[in-house]
């Protein structure tokens, strides 16, 4: 029981608070920005570039089980997903499925 309380304390202090502080700052700033302002356009560009970099890092440095696939397979599968998005009427669900199935097939055919 004390172990459980200790664990909750660790997660609250080192996990929740350290994450929420950035969300808190985000609300503070977000309340003071005019919608459609140029500053917000810049924030949009920053967030977009950041998530794009996150995806590329996951391709180059795959965490956990994703490492059981080759870099080539991951890049081809991601490209197939984006192509699928434009080919299949801009459906996100179908495109994501294309990406995952491509990863499976490429790895299955060519090996990890």
């Amino acid at each position, binding site marked *: 029981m004390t172990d459980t309380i200790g*664990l*909750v304390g*660790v*997660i609250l*202090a*080192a*996990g929740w*608070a*350290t*994450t*929420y502080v*950035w*969300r*808190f700052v*985000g*609300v503070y*700033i*977000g*309340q003071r920005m005019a*919608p*459609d302002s140029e500053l*917000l*356009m*810049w*924030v*949009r*560009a*920053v*967030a*977009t*570039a*950041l*998530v*794009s*970099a*996150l*995806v*590329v*890092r996951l391709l*180059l440095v*795959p*965490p*956990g*089980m*994703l*490492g*059981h696939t080759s870099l080539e397979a991951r890049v081809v*599968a*991601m490209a197939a*997903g984006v192509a699928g*998005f*434009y080919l299949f009427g801009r459906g*996100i*669900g179908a*495109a994501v499925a294309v*990406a*995952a199935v491509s*990863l499976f097939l490429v*790895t299955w055919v060519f090996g*990890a």
Partner: protein
Amino acid sequence: MSGTAYDWTALPHGMRAALGVPGIVMAASFIGFGALVRGLEVGLLAGVLSTPLIWALPGQVVFVNMYAEGAGLAAIGLGVTLTAVRLLPMVVLVISKVRVEGGSRLALYALSHFIAVTIWRVAEDGMDHEERPRRLPWLMGAGLALMASMIVMTCAGYVLAQVLTPLLAACLMFLTPSFFFISLFAGAKFTMDYVSIALGAVIGPVVYRFYPELDLIAAGLVGGTLAYVVTRIGRRKP
């Protein structure tokens, strides 16, 4: 949460919207996370609690890894907070889209806890047709539905860890980066958005080589600013 500024009848609509594609994709990631928790032997509780309390997968992965290594409180906190800085621009964008005059600030701070990449994408892709007073409740519903589901999925992954083949697990894990990347294209409205995607993809790996902890922040700030500046001229508001 006081006041009549928000239209809370939108809450169940948001719940339903979240349990489509974003929910399925997220479920795959959290099954993967549950399997990771099993592998690290930190106990199911640490993994399950990190889902509603941290609610951002990269931070959760850092947390359970460092906790498993027996790292100190300050070290874990620093590792997690470095992964969480990236949430700041997303929160700013979502808040500016949902806030209404005279609306409760407490509701904004409560909503912010749900905001991570997926909720930002859900807001960008599916919320624009909602009237402004309905947006915060709509997104809160989406967040609540996803969070409740992902607590279950974390447990499911913990249990499924031994059943999944490595290739199948890899394909499940691949759904999340695919969803993030494809939804960037789906939400792109300006030339700037495409330039941001390209520059982030190029700058990230270069910075990662030298400063692996700062790659995302640097790629976001440098790539985003460049994209903003080079497309500034000639861009018109829609």
